[in-house]
Structures are given as C-alpha cells and as structure tokens.
C-alpha cells in the first residue's frame, strides 16, 4: 500500500498516512485530486479505480471515506478488508466510532493504524492481538525506564 487517506463527505482530510515518500506539495495535490474524484462517484459504482499507475480502493463508512492506493499487483478485495479491519478496530476502541472520535483522538487513530499496517504491508490481522497491543499501550502510562543519560549529556534533558 502506498498511502491511506481518510476524508469526510465534505472533502475534509481527517487522516493521512504515507508509506512512500513524497514532498508535501505532491501530497497535497494527490489528496485534492483523489478527494474530488471519489466524491464525484455514485454509490453503486465499483470501489476500484485506476489512477495514474496505481489502483485506488475506497469505501465509505457513514460520513467518512477510507481510501487506499495500492500497486498494480496488489489485491483490491483484500485491501477493502484491510480498511474494514481498521474500521472494526476503531469501532471497538472508541465504542461505535464516529468522525468526531477521529478528529479529537487523531493520534490514537494513527497508533491503531501503526499496529495494523507497517511500512504499507499488513502486519497483524488478528483483531484480538491488535486490541491487546493498544490496551498494553494505554496501561503503560508510567514506565520504569530510567531517564536517558545521553540527553543530559547534550544538555537537552
């Protein structure tokens, strides 16, 4: 997967995750172009489209569009299910997730995605395991790791 975008029906970008480096300007252009293209599509249309040399897979959940760009040889149907698994995880975590949850807890949405997808590839497909990892993070408020000596050395502590 090359990138994933979450945006609202009004075309507001809610989350962006890039697995291939692009300059900021290019990212903005790509985002604009895809949001316009996808919002113009009708409900009964296929979830796939060809765009530049990539395949775009997208799906709408309530007011949010989830959109992934994948390589030619990647599997479209399974990408739909990566999206779905992500939605399930958000749903489970926030308890029936809505757009506002993702706006106000955007950092959590990122953390969750990092558990599911690493470097553009699916890392852990088990819902139980991902939720376990996230729960472990939430528990780790206070860690016993000693302060990093290096930073003191640099006067940055």
């Amino acid at each position: 997967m090359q990138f994933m975008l979450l945006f609202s029906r009004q075309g507001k970008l809610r989350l962006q995750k890039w697995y291939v480096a692009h300059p900021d300007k290019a990212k903005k252009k790509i985002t604009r172009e895809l949001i316009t293209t996808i919002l113009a599509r009708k409900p009964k249309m296929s979830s796939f489209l060809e765009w530049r040399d990539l395949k775009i897979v997208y799906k709408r959940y309530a007011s949010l569009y989830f959109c992934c760009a994948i390589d030619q040889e990647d599997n479209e149907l399974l990408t739909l299910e990566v999206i779905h698994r992500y939605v399930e995880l958000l749903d489970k975590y926030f308890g029936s997730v809505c757009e506002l949850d993702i706006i106000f807890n955007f950092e959590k949405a990122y953390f969750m995605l990092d558990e599911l997808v690493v470097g553009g590839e699916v890392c852990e497909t088990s819902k139980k395991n991902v939720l376990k990892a996230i729960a472990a993070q939430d528990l780790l408020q206070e860690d016993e790791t000693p302060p990093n000596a290096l930073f003191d050395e640099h006067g940055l502590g």
Partner: protein
Amino acid sequence: MPAVRGDGMRGLAVFISDIRNCKSKENEVKRINKELANIRSKFKGDKTLDGYQKKKYVCKLLFIFLLGHDIDFGHMEAVNLLSSNKYTEKQIGYLFISVLVNTNSDLIKLIVQNIKNDLNSRNPVHVNLALQCIANIGSKEMAEAFGHDIPKLLVSGETMDVVKQSAALCLLRLFRTNPDIIPGGEWTSRIIHLLNDQHLGVVTAASSLIEALVKLNPDEYKGCVSLAVSRLSRIITASYTDLQDYTYYFVPAPWLSVKLLRLLQHYPPPEDPGVRGRLNECLDAILNKAQEPPKSKKVQHSNAKNAVLFEAISIIIHSDSEAALLVRACNQLGQFLSHRETNLRYLALETMCLLATSEFSHEAVKKHQETVINSLKTERDVSVRQRAVDLLYAMCDRTNAEQIVHEMLNYLESADYSIREEMVLKVAILAEKYAGDYTWYVDVILNLIRIAGDYVSEEVWYRVIQIVVNREDVQGYAAKTVFEALQAPACHENMVKVGGYILGEFGNLIAGDKRSAPQVQFQLLHSKYHLCSASTRALLLTTYIKFINLFPEIKTEIQNILKCDSNLRCSDAELQQRASEYLHLSLVTSTDVLATVLEEMPPFAEKESSILAVLKKKSGRMSAQEAHKEARAAGGAGGAAAAVAAGAVKNSTNDKNAKNSSADLFGISTPPVNSQNNSSSNTGVLVDVLGDLYSSSNNSSMPSVATNGTNSASPATLTSGVTDNIKKFVCKNNGVLYENDIIQIGVKSEFRQNLGRIGVFYGNKTSMPLQGFLPSVSISSADSGRVSVQVKPVESTIEAGAQVQQFVNCECIDHFEDLPEMLVCFTYGSVPQRLSLKLPLSINKFFEPTDMNGESFFARWKNLSSPSQESQQIFKTTCPMESGSIRTKVMGFGMQILEGIDPNPENFVCAGILHTRTQQIGCLMRLEPNRQAQMYRLTIRASKDGTAKILCNLLSQQF
C-alpha cells in the same frame, strides 16, 4: 466534545473544538496563529516545561500541520519526547517525527540515537515503537543506521512475536530504500524459514518481506517455494475454527494465503512433482470452495474468500499450463459476470482479459460473449463498461469479429465520451485484423467516422486509405461507398478527407454510372469545400487536380475553381500555392506528363497498423495486456523479452507516425510515400524480418510482432534494440552505457586520486512509467574490501520519457579486478525486467599520469623486475591499427604518454600512478603495434604484485 480516551489532553481537545467552531477560514487562521505564538513562547520561555506540557504542545503542532499549515519549529521538543520515560510522551514524539520528518542532520543523529536506545530496550512495546518509526520514515540514513541490527532482531530466537512482525516489515521498508542491507548467505535460509513459524502473524509479515526479496532475486530464495506451498496447503485444508483469530469472517488466514500465492507467482510451476501436485490441489480446493454456499451473508466473507480466489486464478493464468484449471477459472469468473456486486463484475471482466489470451481458455472465455455485450449495455459504472470493452477486444477472433465489431459500433453511439477514442481505435484494429472481406472493413471504418467522427484520429483514416490503395479488389466498392456517404447532408470532415482522397484516386471506377458521373462527384465534393478546414481544403485541391487527369471533360470547370480569388489569393499560403501550382500544371503540361505526374498512388508498404501503436500509447493497461499476450506468443520464453519486443514495436511505430503526420500524404511536391518502403512491400514479410536484424533500429525496423503473429519476428526485434557499451568505458568516462527499447542508461564520471563519482542517467524511452525502479551495485566477492561503492537512492518510478540520475560514489582501496555488477530492476507494463550490467569502474580510472624522462623511466623499469611485477600479452587485433585511435585509447586509459623514449615512433611508452586508499602503485607500460602481423605486444610493470596483470587484461581487450 466527545469523551477523550486514554490520558487525553484537555488543552488539545479545547483547541480542536475552537478550530471546529471557527466560522470562516480567516478565523481559523487567526486562531491557529494565536496558538502558534503561544506554543512558541512556551517553548522559548524560561520556565521548563514538564513532559505532559511538551507532549500537549507537540500534539497541537501536529494537529495544525495535519490541517494543512506549515510548521517550522517544535522538532527539537518532539525529539526530546523520544527519551521520555513516559510511554505516551514517547509515542507522541515518535508520531510527530514520523509525520514531519526533517532532514536537519543534527536532529537526525539524535533521533537515530533515541531509536537505537529503544531498539535495545527490554520492553517490547518500546522496541515496536522504534521499529514502526523506522518503517514510517524508511530513509537512507535509517537504512544505514539499522540495516545491521534489524535482520538480527528478526531471526533471533529471543525476539517476541509482535516484535518479529514489525521487524520483518521494517526490514522490508529499508530494503526498498536500499536493497544492499539484506545480508545473504546463511541469512537467506533463516529468513525463508520464518514461513514455518508457529505464529501466523509472524508468517504473514515475513511473507511480505520474502515476496519482495524474491522479486529481486528469485534464485537466491528458491528454497521458499516448497515451504510456501506446504504452508498454503495447511491453511486451505484447515477448517475455519483451526486458525482462531486469524480466520476472518469464516475465511482462514486470507491475508497470508494471498501473500503466499503472490510469492509463488514469481516462480514457474514447481519442478518437483510432489510440490507441484500439492499446489494444484490447493488451487483446486480454492476453486471448489468458491462453489460452496457462503458461510456468511456478510460482504466481508465474500470479499476475503474471493480475494484468495482471484489470487489463485492469477497464479493459474501465470503458469498457463494447466488447461483444466484455466477452464475452471474461466467458468468461475463467468458466474461473477452477472453477480450483483459491482466490484466482482469489475474484477471478473479484468481478469478474463488475461484468460482470453491463453490458448487453453480462449474458447471458454468466448462462451461469455453475450453476457459481456450485455454488460456493455447495462452497466451503470463507466469503469466497468470500459472493462467490458477491453474484454470484448481481448476475446475477439476470426469467428466472432463481425458480431463484436457490430456490437461495439452500436455501443459507440451512446458511449461515454471518455472512452470513445479508445473504442474507435479498438474497432479499427479488430476490423482490420479480422477482415475476411475488405468491403466489410471499409464499411466499418466509414461507420466509425459517421458515428464518432470527432474521435477518429488521423491514424485511423490514414489506415483505411492505405488499405484501399493496396487492395485492388476493394477500390471500386470503396469509391461507391464513400460517394454514398458523402451524400448525407451533414457529414463529418474526416469523411470528406477519406472521400476526397478515394475519389481522387478511384473516382473513375464509378464514373460509368450516371448517378456518380465525374461532374456529380466533383460537385458533391466541392459542396463541402467551403465548410472545411484549410488542411481538408488542401487535400481537396489535390483531388481536383487528380480529377483533371481522370476526367478531362471537367477540366475547365476545375480550372475555374482553382482560378477564383478565394483560392488563388487565399490568405493561407499553402492553399494559395497549391491552387496556383495545380492551375499551371493543368495549363502548361501535355496530357502525357499530366498522366505521369498524377498517376495512381503506388501501394503503401505493408506494415503493422500504426493504430495499434497509438492504442498502446494511449493506455498503459492495454500495453500491459499486449505485453502479456506477446509473452505468450513468444512461447512463454520470459515475459521480459516480450515486453522488450513490445517496446520495440511501440517505439518504431511512433517514429513512423511522426514521419507520416509531418509528411504531406497528398502533396504533389512530395513523392507518394517514400520509395524505400515501396520496394520492401513487394518482397514480403520474410525479408522485412531479416531487414530488422540487419538494419539500424531507428529506420525501417518493421514491427511484425503483433499483427501477423509470427513468433520468429520477436527475437529479431529484440536483438536489434540492445546495445551494451561497457567495454568502451575502460578508456572513456562519459557516454551511453546501455540501451534497449525501454531504457537508455548513460554515464558521466569523474575521478580524483582514489575517489570517484559516477553519475548514472536512466532515461525511460517509452510512453509508460517504469515502476519499482531499483538499481543496485555489488562488488564481486574476490574484490570485496578492495573497492567500495556507495549508491545514492533514486525514485522508484521513472515517468514516461523522463530521465533520472543516480550518483555512485566510489573509492579504490586496493587494486581490484572485476567491474562491479550493476543490477537494474523495474517493472514495465506489469512485466518485471532485470538488466544485469557492469558498472564502468575499472582500476585504471584511478590513474594519475606521470611525466618523466627516459633515464628515470629505464631506471624504474629495471627496478620492477620480479616476475609478479610484470605482465606481457601478445595478441592479434580485430580493429584497424590506426595510430590516432590507438593514441586516443592509450590516453583514455589514464597513463601519461612519454614521447621520445622509445626509438620506434610507432610504439607507446607510458607512466602513471594508481591511487588507492592504502598505497600508490607506480606503473609503466610499453605498447608495440606490429602492422604487418596485425598484432600488438603489451608489457606492463607495476610496483605491486599482480597489478600489472590486471592492467594488462584490461587494456589488451581494447584493441
């Protein structure tokens, strides 16, 4: 405001609320600027912020950045957070730097150090955070800093499963940045054996990594085939309860299954009959499951199940050897064609296109013709209709061409504008390819012009004219048909062009009929004249002068037209010139001369339809399909080869188009098409194929691959395009290193002392992007440690026609023998390409020329007298022994030519110092050409043992 989870930051939530409540963009910007000022003052203030506050402000900055505003501070505070002992602070720090990577080198060092600390942490949650960060950034620096540790982490028995998963994918990301970081040798088998891991999550992550490694180096990882097959087989035969949480909506481990099937597609069907049998059983089982009633009504179940199914079909198509499986796959897809899910219809149409190109399943695909035609008419999504058009095109053959063309013409009347042009091209190609009877072909093309005239490109109507000119049997029919078509009250300008040209050539064939008498023909054409553009008028003027020759009885009438002010004084120079020249031609020349000048056009050269090239150029998807098809045509002898051939077809035909469109196809001043083509048209295909082999690639290379389907032609096109100039680079630093029909690789290099910088330029010659572009350089094991190269990364895509450059920094550490290997991998169409080349880096590049007099030369020569310091070769030459060119080569070799030392002026005596990191090697050389014998004697002495031999081998190959 919704509840904030975890240890939510209230200040952040308030800020986000504020932003959301802003009524206008200006308000929002104002609020953000206020916040930025606040954060800046907090960061700069005297009061030390505690971790929580830092985290909160960094998080606000991140939010502002994600809203689309620029952030130019706060990086240091974010890096500070990395070393926090509170996990959530650390996490926010990592998130910030992952999103806002800054190349500021001071910070990078700090970041790397922090990541290192976390990687060594005993807490797996911290290790994972570090790994995810590396994978998110994936920069060159990261590859350098962690390329060593992560493989260890991945295969170590002590690493926890969750960490292994991240490590595998982290390594994959770094491998994409720099392929050299993957250790070879024993690591290969340790990595492959991750496929046997107990933990399915580990296997899933590892299989992604292995798939990428296999893509670049299939031989090295061959061992994974049998492991992958047995893993797959265990999953497929498992019941959905066996795999617990790795079962997704009643489908056992769909992600892993798809990955394994993908991995296996990089290999031919397994040779071991046992493995092969097991794989076929799996594929069979997957096809069987597709027929079972669904275990759930949820779309997730069907998607996951079908994702595996499509991947299985993909491997079946890829191996193209099991007829039974191919037919079963086709039948399965046939069912999807009328499925209620649009997505499945879309994918089925797309995949069937590939099945249509296999001889085993072509007939099976044809059974679904009615359904496909029906989807063309009823699908509501244009992208699905587009797929249907593609499939009809792919399944077309002699038996169904008339019906398919008929249906496509029907559809064209109502087709979406976005796909009309491509459809026109496809119809034109099919009509020509499968025309049993050329009257049908003429009808189809005229219909195309009638229905979609605006979308009929020049190539299409040029082509119909070429065919009519070349086929006597259809000329009368064509004249009659265009004459009728021109009678329509509003006819397209393209029709006027075709009509004008054909009547000008063959109007006499229908002039016997009173209804199409010369005068009627002329008046019909001239009635359109004033409505047409200048280029069409120019064409019509040529038709008129041709009429003067064909029909002397209307000569005066035509002369009057030519004479009239609107032509003779036309503001368009071309029209004015034509009118005046044609008029004078008709006034002053005898009928004999006129008849000679205006004779019927000779036949055009029989070539591949240029339309096909346009179609390929138009859509990348098409070219991929064609490449696939041609891979099969070439007997499956490697997709890469066929793709090269396809590239050749494309390039040469494009050249031709350029020629055609610039030349005046009709002007009297230009002889009708060039005579060189005429001569070859009579001699037939065989000579053209040979012509390909012997002629230079840019001119008459005839693209015979696609249309006539002669397999023998593809190797011909293949060999013609490739040049590898590596040998020449021993004595020069700049130039074209390698070129084939897809890519041109140029080199520009400079050297100083023991250092060098080689700029490599990759130019994409095609009209499709080259993807997954990944050049890599490796040093032979014999030379490892003697020379070092450092390859800068390049972008993974080279756009059509674009060039990218890559720098390779090199250092000579000790004398070395072999040129470094250069492997260039990329995907063209969907076909992976691998070019195995050499980097033009030879030891002599590090020469410094040294001047000396005869006395010191001989003294040194004598000093270097041990046998291992000298090397001598006597060899015959194949090149002409011209002293100028010998001198150029010797100078290019890098040593100083010393004049006046050797009594024989024909001989060359040279001296130079080789700079390596460890030492300087003094070298002396004598080269004696013997013209009578066409031989050379080359003697080299060098201060280091063995160096002379290396140099001698290098230089002797240059003559």
